[in-house]
C-alpha cells in the first residue's frame, strides 16, 4: 500500500500539494510510507486498532442498541501541521480565548458591549445558554474558560477557519494523548525525524491550570474531576484525566455540601474540595438551580460557587459565547475588547433571527449547512448539498418557527488528508480541534484532535456519526530531513 495513484480530486490536501507532489514538510513521512513493504502498513494499522480495543479506549453512542461501547476508529497516517501554520494558529487561538473570556465576564457583569450596541442585546439575553444565575459573578482571577477545544477547519483556499468554539465541556483530549502513544509505536522513526512536538505533558498543564483556578486564599487546593458517570459517552476520558493528574474522579453522589462547602465522601470521612473540573453540563450541575430532575449534579453547588468557596472549571454560563448565533459576532468581540483584527477567520454565518439572513437561508437550503445554535456533536444539522427535499422542508419549517435557534453557513470544501481505506490510501475530509488552557497564561497544546470522516465524500467527522481520528503532528520549528532508516 502506498501513495501511487493517490488523487486529491481538487480538494485541498494536508499532505499532497496541488501539483500532486508531497508537500515539502510531509515528504519524509510519505517517503517512509512508500518505502514500507506492501502489507506492512496494513499490519501496523491492525496492531493499532487491536491496542485500542485491548485498552478499552471507548466511547458510548447514545441510542445505539448494539453495544454501549465502541472504539473510535484510528487511522495511523498522521495529519501534519507545519511550524509556520502552527505559529499563526497558536497566536490566533490565544487571541480568541482572551477576547471570549473578557466577553463572558462583561456579559455577566457590566454588559458594556451591549450598551455600546456591538451585539444586539436581545440576541445575547435570549440565548438558552445565557444564565441569569451567573449575573454579578466573577470567578477567581476572572477566568471563566479554563479549558477550550476549538474546532478548526481548513477550506478549499488553504486557510484555517474557526467552526465552533466549544467553551463548555470540550471532550476528545484523551484521544489526542492515546493516539499519540499508539502512533509512536506505529511509525517511530519518522515521528522522531520530523521533530514532532510533544503533547504528553497535557495532564501537568491541566493540573496547573486547575490549581491556578482555586478560590482566593487556598494555598494547596484539592482538585477533583466530576463526571456524570460510566454511562456518559466521554466517561473514559474523565477517568483518564483524573488518572493523568492523580486526582479523585467523583460522581455527583460522592459530593455533598456542609456549611457552604463542597465535601467529598471518603472512607476517612468528609473532605473539603476546592476546585472541580466538572464534565457535567451547566443544566445538570445543580438540581436546585437548573434542571430539577438532574440526578447527576450536586444540589447547592451553585450557591457554593457564588459564595466563592469552590471553583468550577469551566465556570457556569460560558455557553453564552458558544451560541452559534453569537459566534457570528466573535470578530467584532475581538475587535471590541482587544482592538485587534482576528488572526483566525470565522466561517461566514447567516443568523436566522435576522430577517435578511433568514430569507437568504431559506432560499438556499440546498447549498448551506444549517445548524441548531445550541447543539454540537453533529446533531440537529442539515447539510444542504446532500439533503433530501423532505429534510429541507422539515428544516425550513423549524427555522420559520424558531429562527433564533438556527444559523446557516456555506458548505465548506473541508480539506482532505490521506487515510487508509481497506487496502488503499484515499483522501478523506478532516477537521482539527486544538486544546487551549487558561491558567497563569494561555497555553495551546501543540497538537490536537484531527477527526476524519471515514465515509467516502462525507463531511461529518463526529465520532457519534461514523468519524474516526488521527494523530496530529505539529512540527518543530526547524524541520530537518533525515536519512530514514528503512529497516526500522
Amino acid at each position, binding site marked *: 500500500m502506498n501513495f501511487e495513484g493517490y488523487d486529491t480530486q481538487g480538494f485541498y490536501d494536508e499532505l499532497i500539494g496541488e501539483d500532486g507532489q508531497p508537500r515539502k514538510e510531509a515528504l519524509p513521512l510519505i517517503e517512509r510510507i512508500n518505502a514500507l513493504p506492501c502489507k506492512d502498513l496494513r499490519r501496523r494499522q491492525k496492531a493499532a486498532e487491536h491496542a485500542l*480495543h*485491548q*485498552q*478499552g479506549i471507548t466511547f458510548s453512542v447514545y441510542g445505539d442498541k448494539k453495544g454501549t461501547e465502541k472504539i473510535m476508529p484510528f487511522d495511523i497516517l498522521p495529519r501534519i501541521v507545519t511550524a509556520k501554520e502552527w505559529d499563526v494558529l497558536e497566536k490566533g487561538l490565544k487571541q480568541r480565548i482572551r477576547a471570549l473570556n473578557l466577553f463572558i465576564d462583561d456579559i455577566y457583569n457590566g454588559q458594556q458591549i451591549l450598551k455600546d450596541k456591538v451585539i444586539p442585546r436581545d440576541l445575547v439575553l435570549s440565548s438558552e445558554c445565557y444564565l441569569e444565575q451567573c449575573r454579578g459573578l466573577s470567578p477567581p482571577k476572572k477566568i471563566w474558560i479554563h479549558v477550550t477545544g476549538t474546532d478548526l477547519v481548513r477550506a478549499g483556499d488553504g486557510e484555517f477557519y474557526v467552526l465552533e468554539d466549544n467553551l463548555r465541556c470540550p471532550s476528545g483530549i484523551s484521544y489526542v494523548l492515546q493516539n499519540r502513544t499508539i502512533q509512536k509505536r506505529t511509525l517511530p522513526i519518522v515521528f522522531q525525524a520530523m521533530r514532532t512536538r510533544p503533547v504528553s505533558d497535557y495532564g501537568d498543564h491541566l493540573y496547573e491550570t486547575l490549581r491556578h483556578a482555586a478560590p482566593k486564599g487556598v494555598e494547596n487546593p484539592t482538585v477533583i474531576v466530576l463526571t456524570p*458517570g*460510566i454511562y456518559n459517552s466521554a*466517561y*473514559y476520558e474523565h*477517568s*483518564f484525566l*483524573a*488518572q493523568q493528574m492523580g486526582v*479523585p*474522579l*467523583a*460522581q455527583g*453522589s*460522592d459530593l*455533598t455540601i*456542609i456549611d457552604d462547602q463542597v465535601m*467529598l*465522601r*471518603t*472512607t*476517612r*470521612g*468528609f473532605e473539603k474540595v476546592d476546585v472541580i473540573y466538572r464534565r457535567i453540563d451547566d443544566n445538570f450541575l445543580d438540581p436546585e438551580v437548573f434542571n430539577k430532575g438532574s440526578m447527576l449534579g450536586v444540589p447547592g453547588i451553585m450557591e457554593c460557587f457564588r459564595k466563592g468557596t469552590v471553583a468550577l472549571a469551566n465556570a457556569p454560563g460560558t455557553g453564552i459565547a458558544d451560541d452559534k448565533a453569537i459566534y457570528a459576532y466573535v470578530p467584532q468581540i475581538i475587535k471590541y475588547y482587544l482592538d485587534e483584527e482576528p488572526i483566525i477567520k470565522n466561517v461566514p454565518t447567516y443568523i436566522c433571527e435576522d430577517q435578511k439572513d433568514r430569507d437568504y437561508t431559506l432560499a438556499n437550503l440546498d447549498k448551506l449547512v444549517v445548524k441548531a445554535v445550541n447543539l454540537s456533536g453533529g446533531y440537529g444539522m442539515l447539510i444542504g448539498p446532500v439533503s433530501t427535499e423532505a429534510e429541507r422542508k422539515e428544516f425550513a419549517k423549524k427555522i420559520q418557527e424558531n429562527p433564533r435557534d438556527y444559523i446557516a453557513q456555506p458548505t465548506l470544501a473541508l480539506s482532505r488528508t490521506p487515510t487508509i481505506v481497506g487496502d488503499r490510501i484515499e483522501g478523506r475530509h478532516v477537521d482539527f480541534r486544538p486544546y487551549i488552557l487558561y491558567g497563569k497564561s494561555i497555553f495551546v497544546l501543540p497538537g490536537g484532535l484531527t477527526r476524519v470522516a471515514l465515509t467516502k465524500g462525507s463531511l461529518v467527522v463526529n465520532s457519534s456519526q461514523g468519524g474516526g481520528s488521527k494523530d496530529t503532528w505539529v512540527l518543530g520549528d526547524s524541520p530537518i530531513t533525515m536519512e530514514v532508516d528503512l529497516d526500522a
Partner: protein
Amino acid sequence: MLSRVANSIYWMSRYLERADNVARFIDVNARLILDVGWERETAQWEPLVRASGDEADFAARYSEYSEKKVVHFLTFDEENPNSIISCIHAARENARTVREIISSEMWEAINALYHLVDKHSRKRKVDDLQSFYISVDHTNHLFAGMMENTMSHGEGWHFARAGKMLERADKTARMLDVKYFLLLPTPDYFDSPYDTVEWGAVLKSVSGFEVYCKRYHRANYRHVTQFLVLDEYFARSIRYCVRTAARSVADISKMLEITVPVTDEFARLEKMLDEADNEVILNKGLHEFVDAFQFNLNVIDQSLYQSFFALEKK
C-alpha cells in the same frame, strides 16, 4: 479514598473471585462425571445449582437439570446475577468506575476477560468450554499478580483483598456443602471409592488437592473438612480467608486512624473458627455449620458497608 471507589474496588474483586470459582466448579464437576462414570444424561448437575444458592431462580426459568441448561445458567445466563458472564460484566463495570485507581494492567486484564466471555458465549457444552473455564481461572491469577505488583499496597489494595478473601471463604464453604446436596451420606458410603473421588473433586474445585495430599495423602471427609475449614495455611481454607480479610480491614482502619464496628464482627468470627473443633462440626452437621458461617459472612459484609462505604451527614 472515595467511599464509592472503595466499594467498587471491593466488589470488583469479589465478582472476579466469584466468576473464577464458578468456572472451576463447573470444570471440576465435568471431570468428576468422567471419573465416576455416570451416564452423561443422568449425571448430577443439580448440586451445582443448589450449591450456588440460586435453585429458586433456576427452577423458575428452566425445566430440567440437564448439562446444557445448568451450564448455560451458571455460565452465560445474564439474568442470573451469579453466572460467570454476569460476574465478569459486574467486575468490569466496577473496574470501569475505578479505572483511575487500579493499574492499567489490571484494567486491561479484566477487559480482556470481558471480550473473551463474549467470544465463547454461543457455546453450550462443557467440553467445548473447557478452555474458557481455564482462561477465566488464569486471568484471575494474572489479575492477582498484577494487583500484587502494579498497585500500591494501600487502602484500595486492602479493600480488594478483603473482598477477594470474603468471597473465597463463602465459595469454599459452598463447595463443602455441595457434598451435602450430591448425596445423602449413609454410613456404608463413607470412605468408599466413590466417596474418595467426590471429595477429591471438591478439593480440586478449590485448587486444594495437591496441598491436601501432601498432608493427608488420602481423601477422607474428616480430613477434607478439617483442611478446608480450619487449615491455617491453605490459601482457600475458610479460616485463612477470614483471617486475611480481617488483617486487611485492620490495616485499613489503621491507615485511616478510625475504629470501625466491623473489626468486632471479624474478631467474633475469628474466635469462632479458632475454637471450632472438626469433630463437633461434623457431629452437628456440616451443612448446618456452613449455613451459620454464611450468615456470619453476611453480617460482616453489611458491617463493612456501614463502616466504610455508607457515609452519612451527622
